[in-house]
């Protein structure tokens, strides 16, 4: 048993942290205020290889592993949750279905530019009627000659409007009504495909979350991703890896909040001493540290299992569930430690709290994670 990161993983952390501290942290608040997609920073991140961390160099990626990817998302999120979710949605949701199920030609055409960071990816599963339950998918695709024709829409899609490549699901019934769901690759400039409204969110203002609209959108037959009718399985498998990304994002936000709260507690004086000397405050900090430590171990272990080629579905769900709830509590307590200064924007901790809330919702809510975990442990299908 070895709990130490390898020198290479330490090096990766130092490298990403260096970039995040110098380039992202100083402008993170401003990015949120402007609410614009931080294209320039994402371009720089792409140049550094931060957009294709776990994909092989042969396909344009950086050639590292899931653990390196988790560390990358953690460190980016420590500086900005928006940058964390942009990179996470691109890497583990946008790229991964093509990596898992793409043909060589699809990988060459679509994954290579995405893994190298030249093109941003997005993943469209959620619809108004299909949130936790993807069987509610209404977007349809029917075959017409050598094309598929898509009609319908997606909601809450990260990187909408900035992505060049979208992987989406649609129901592909022919005559029989099986409700089978298939996956497709859609290029941003395909006629019949448009971006609808952008959500106004509680946090993560510098990341795009928007609607995808398909109106007789014709895509070439070869853009079917994986087997017809297997899209649902492919997208759920993708979420397994994505959950490591969201867990890492939660971890980075919690870490940032914890660091801010510890520094503030030592500095702020009331009743003639530093507030860190009051047990009521000190114990909050101790609990934060314990939660983060446990969440980090779960997250890194899930990544390690993935890197070992072992099954990691349950562990990724555990990591995501636990890390997101730790992030919620830690960021909330960080505001508390700051008192009134925590509630105003100057000390950043209210931003961490708003951003952290998403980690309990995206890529499966906490309730869904519990369901996944319980199902796998108990071997029951229902729920």
């Amino acid at each position: 048993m070895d709990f130490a990161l390898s020198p290479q993983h330490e090096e990766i952390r130092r490298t990403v942290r260096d970039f995040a501290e110098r380039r992202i942290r100083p402008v993170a608040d401003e990015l949120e205020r402007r609410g614009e997609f931080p294209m320039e920073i994402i371009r720089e991140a792409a140049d550094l290889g931060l957009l294709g961390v776990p994909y092989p160099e042969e396909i344009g990626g950086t050639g590292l592993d899931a653990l390196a990817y988790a560390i990358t998302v953690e460190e980016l999120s420590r500086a900005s949750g928006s940058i964390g979710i942009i990179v996470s949605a691109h890497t583990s949701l946008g790229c991964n279905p093509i990596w898992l199920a793409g043909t060589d030609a699809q990988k060459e055409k679509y994954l290579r530019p995405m893994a190298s960071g030249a093109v941003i990816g997005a993943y469209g599963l959620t619809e108004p009627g299909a949130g936790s339950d993807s069987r509610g998918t209404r977007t349809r695709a029917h075959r017409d000659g050598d094309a598929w024709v898509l009609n319908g829409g997606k909601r809450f899609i990260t990187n909408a409007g900035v992505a060049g490549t979208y992987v989406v699901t649609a129901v592909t019934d022919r005559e029989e009504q099986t409700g089978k769901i298939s996956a497709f690759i859609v290029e941003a400039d395909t006629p019949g495909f448009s971006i609808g409204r952008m959500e106004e969110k509680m946090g993560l203002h510098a990341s795009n979350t928007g609607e995808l609209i398909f109106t007789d959108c014709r895509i070439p037959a070869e853009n079917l991703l994986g087997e017809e009718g297997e899209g649902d399985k492919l997208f759920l498998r993708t979420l397994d890896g994505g959950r490591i990304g969201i867990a890492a994002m939660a971890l980075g936000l919690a870490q940032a909040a914890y660091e801010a709260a510890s520094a503030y507690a030592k500095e702020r004086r009331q009743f003639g001493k530093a507030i860190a000397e009051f047990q009521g405050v000190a114990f909050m900090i101790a609990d934060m540290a314990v939660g983060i430590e446990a969440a980090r171990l779960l997250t890194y272990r899930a990544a390690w299992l993935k890197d070992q080629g072992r099954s990691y579905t349950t562990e990724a769900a555990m990591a995501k569930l636990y890390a997101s709830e730790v992030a919620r509590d830690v960021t909330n307590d960080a505001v508390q430690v700051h008192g009134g200064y925590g509630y105003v924007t100057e000390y950043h901790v209210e931003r961490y709290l708003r951003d952290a809330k998403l980690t309990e919702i995206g890529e499966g809510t906490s309730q869904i994670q519990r369901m996944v975990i319980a199902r796998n442990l108990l071997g029951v299908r229902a729920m």
Partner: protein
Amino acid sequence: MKIVVCIKQVPATTAEKRYTDDLRLDRASAEAIINPLDEYAIEQALRLLDAGTVDEVGYLSMGPEQAGEALRRALAMGGESATLVTDPALAGADEWATAAVLAAALDKLAPDVALMGMASDDARGSLVPGAVAARRNLPLLSYGAELALADGQARIRRLSPTGFDWIAAPLPVVASVTDQVGEPRYASLKGIMAAKRKPLDTWSLADVGLSAEDLRSGALTRVTDARPPEAKPPTERIENVSADEAAAKIADWLAARKLV
């Protein structure tokens, strides 16, 4: 045209340092980084490489085996190859001994410019560039805010009290640069992967034509004592008083110490 950047691995600036019984720094106790002032030398060399002025950038370090990590990190920023001179006999080498080893290695590597940072973050002697130049009998261009290479000449721009001076010397030279060079670039993850494939040679003392005996006679200094900095007296706080009262108290405090 070829530049070799000499880099030193040092304990992180903020790390708490411990000493071994013979008053040497316990290097295992602190996180090790590239001497931050050397990163400016790396940046300067890589800018000249990017501009096509030089066609090869290599790195040279003398230190324990783990200094190879610093060389790998430099290679992740850019450049082609690196050389580490490491030998049990080098433990405790002072500036003069270090300069002897670097000079011998540079004789073998034969760069047009041997480039260094202006000082090391741990020892802050600033002696090595001059000592290497003296050893190699080459011109020294020190404390450059910028290094330019053209027509068989190296020039540095050095800030002076009245503006700046351009100082030139025919190649090959030994040069050092300051933080005026500009922000060092970030290492990249792609760079880290690429660095794994770049050659990193390890040379012993014998490989550079020196013996332990040469070094013993070369070491001119010895550490006789090491202690932590004295604790600062406790901060006096003036709290919970009006601004006028606080100002008066501060003025009194300064006046009592003849500071105003």
